[in-house]
C-alpha cells in the first residue's frame, strides 16, 4: 500500500493522488489539512522501527503494510488542531502534530519520497552547491559575503553581470544586480548575501525519479524562469536529452543527498557546458509535466508501486 502524506489543498499532492488513481495503484491519503481531526494514530517505538497504525475515514492501515510513501509535508497547510485565539498556542499545537508525522516518515523502513533528513540541504544553497560539485557538475562562480567591498569587486570582476538569490530555502526571486542595488550593499553588514556570475543559456530542469531522468528544456529571456510569464517574457518547454555523464551526475547527486526524487536546475551554456544551480528536494513538477507533456507523475507512480532500495 502506498501512503500519500500531504494536504489536498496542495496541487502536487492532489495530482499525485489523481495519478495513482488513474494507474490503479492502491493508496491511502493522510490529508494533512484534516490531520489529526479525521485520523487516529498509534505509533510505538519499541524495536528498531516504529510499529502501529493509521486510521482514516473508513480505513485502517498497519504501518507494516506501507510499501512506499510520497510526502509533501512542507507544502501542507497544517491547520492548528486547537481552536484558540492565541497564535503561539496554535503554532505550538501545529508544530507538535507536524513533528510526530515527520518523525514517523523519517523512520519507516520503506522507500519515502523524500525523507526529511535528505531535504534539509535545501535550506542551505551554498551547502547544496558543495554537494553538486562533488557529484561532478559545474557550479556558478559565487560569492557569499557581508563585505560590501568584496561584493563590489565580484560584480566588477563579472562585468556587472551578476544575480543575487537567497542563501536559505526561503523562496526568493532570482534577480540581476542593478546599479541601484550596489547602493544598498552597506546593508550587508547585517548578514551575508549570495551573488553569482550570471550564466547565459537555456534552463534545463531535470527530474530524477529513482534511476529515471526526465529533462525539460526551458527557453525564456527571464532570469528566473518561474516568474517569466508574470513579468512579460515568453516561455517554452520541450523534452531534451542530456549527455550520459550529466545524467549520471544527476543520479549521483540525488542518491548522494539521500533522495529518491529531485528537481535539479541546470543551464546549458552556448558553449555546451552544463552548470548546476540547485536541487529542489520536493519538486512541484506539475508545471513541467503540463508544459512539456513529459510523464513525470507516471514515473513517480511506478517508483512508488515497485518500491526501491530504501534511502
Amino acid at each position, binding site marked *: 500500500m502506498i501512503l500519500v502524506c500531504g494536504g489536498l489543498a496542495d496541487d502536487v499532492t492532489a495530482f499525485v493522488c489523481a495519478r495513482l488513481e488513474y494507474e490503479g495503484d492502491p493508496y491511502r491519503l493522510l490529508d494533512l489539512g484534516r490531520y*489529526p481531526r479525521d*485520523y*487516529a*494514530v*498509534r*505509533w*510505538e*517505538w519499541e524495536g*528498531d*522501527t*516504529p510499529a*502501529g497504525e493509521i486510521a482514516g475515514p473508513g480505513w485502517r492501515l498497519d504501518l507494516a503494510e506501507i510499501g512506499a510513501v510520497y510526502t509533501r509535508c512542507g507544502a501542507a497547510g497544517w491547520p492548528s*488542531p*486547537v481552536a484558540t485565539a492565541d497564535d503561539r498556542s496554535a503554532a*505550538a*499545537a501545529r*508544530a*507538535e*502534530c507536524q*513533528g*510526530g508525522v515527520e*518523525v*514517523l516518515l*523519517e*523512520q519507516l523502513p520503506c522507500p519515502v519520497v523524500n525523507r*526529511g*533528513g*535528505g531535504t*534539509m*540541504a535545501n*535550506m*542551505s*544553497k*551554498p*551547502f547544496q552547491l*558543495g554537494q553538486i560539485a562533488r557529484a561532478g557538475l*559545474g*557550479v*556558478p*562562480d*559565487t*560569492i*557569499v*559575503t*557581508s*563585505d560590501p567591498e*568584496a561584493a563590489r569587486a*565580484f560584480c566588477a570582476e563579472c562585468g556587472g553581470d551578476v544575480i543575487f538569490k*537567497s*542563501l*536559505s*530555502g*526561503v523562496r526568493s526571486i532570482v534577480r540581476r544586480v542593478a546599479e541601484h542595488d550596489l547602493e544598498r550593499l552597506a546593508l*550587508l*553588514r*547585517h*548578514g*551575508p548575501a*549570495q551573488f553569482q*556570475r550570471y550564466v547565459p543559456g537555456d534552463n534545463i530542469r531535470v527530474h530524477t525519479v529513482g534511476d529515471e531522468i526526465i529533462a525539460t528544456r526551458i527557453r525564456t529571456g527571464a532570469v528566473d524562469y518561474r516568474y517569466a510569464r508574470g513579468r512579460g517574457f515568453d516561455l517554452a518547454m520541450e523534452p531534451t536529452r542530456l549527455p550520459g555523464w550529466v545524467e549520471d551526475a544527476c543520479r549521483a547527486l540525488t542518491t548522494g543527498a539521500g533522495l529518491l526524487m529531485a528537481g535539479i536546475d541546470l543551464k546549458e551554456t552556448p558553449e555546451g557546458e552544463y552548470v548546476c544551480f540547485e536541487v529542489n528536494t520536493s519538486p512541484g513538477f506539475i508545471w513541467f509535466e503540463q508544459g512539456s507533456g513529459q510523464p513525470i507523475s507516471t514515473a513517480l507512480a511506478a517508483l512508488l508501486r515497485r518500491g526501491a532500495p530504501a534511502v
Partner: protein
Amino acid sequence: MTGVGAAIYLLIGHDDDLCCREVADVLRARAARVIVTPEPLAGEVAFSWAFGARPSSSSLRLADGTRIDRDGLAGVLVRAQGGPVEGEGWTVEDLAYARTETSAALVAWLWDLPCPVVNRLTPDLWFGFRRPLVEWRPLLLRHGIPAANGLICGDAAAARGFARRWGGVAVYAPLTSRARYPVADEASWAELAKISAQLPVCLLEPSVGAAAYACVAGGVVVWQGRELLSGGERAAMESGLRSLAAGLGLGLIEAEVRRAGGGARCYGLELFPWLERYDTASRDAIVGALAGSLGVVG
C-alpha cells in the same frame, strides 16, 4: 605541553557560554589568538567566501582590520548558529529571515574549512538539532545505546495500554519542548485525555530517580552522576556513545541517561551541551578534550 604559538581559533558562541569561555582560556594559555563571537559572518566581522570554477577561498576581516584567511584558522568551536543577535530595529519577520540566511551560510562555510571544526553538523542536524527522543531512538539503538520506549497516539485508551506495562505510569514528553510531565494519577490521566482528544501525544516509559549525563568530548566520556549507574551500564553506554559520536562525525555530544525498569536507558541527546551541570574537574576534562579536538596537544 605543546604550545600553539600564533594559531588563530574561532569560537562561535555567546559571551555567557561557559564552554566557549573555558575553551578560550585554555587556548589563550597556550598563546593562541582566540576570537569569540556569536556572529562570525556579519556585524563586527566582514565575511567573504568565493567559490565556483575557482578554488574556494574565504576570509574574515575583524573590526581592527585584521584579515584571517580560510587557511589561517587553526580550529573552530561551534556553539551558536550565527546572527543577528540583537533584535532591535528589526521586524520579527525580517529578523527571522536574516537569521535563517546567516545560518544557511554558516553551515555551508563550516564544511568548507580545512581545519578541525567541533561540531561540524550536517544540514539535517544543523536545522534540526533539538530532537525528541523518539527521533534519535533508531540511531541510538544502531550504536548499541538502549533508549526508552515511546508512543505517539491520539487515543487515551492506547496511552493507558502503553503505561500498563510500567504499572500504569508514563511520562508525557511533548515533541517540541524539553518539558516532561509524569502521568501517574487519575488527575494527570484526565488532563492527558483532554490533550490527546485534540492532538496526538508522545509518551515515554517512566524512569526512576535522577538523571546522569554523559558528555562525549573528543572521544573522552565525562559523567555527571556516574554513581547512578553500575560500572557495566556505564561501560556499555560509553562504548555506544563513542560509536555514535564517531558515526555522526561529532566532537561533542551529551546523553541524558536514566534508570528505567529494564536498566539504564537514554532519554535524550544534546548537540550543544551546557557545561554548567558538570563539576569543576569534569568541566576541565571536557574542555581539555575539546582543546585536543581543535588540534591543541596538551
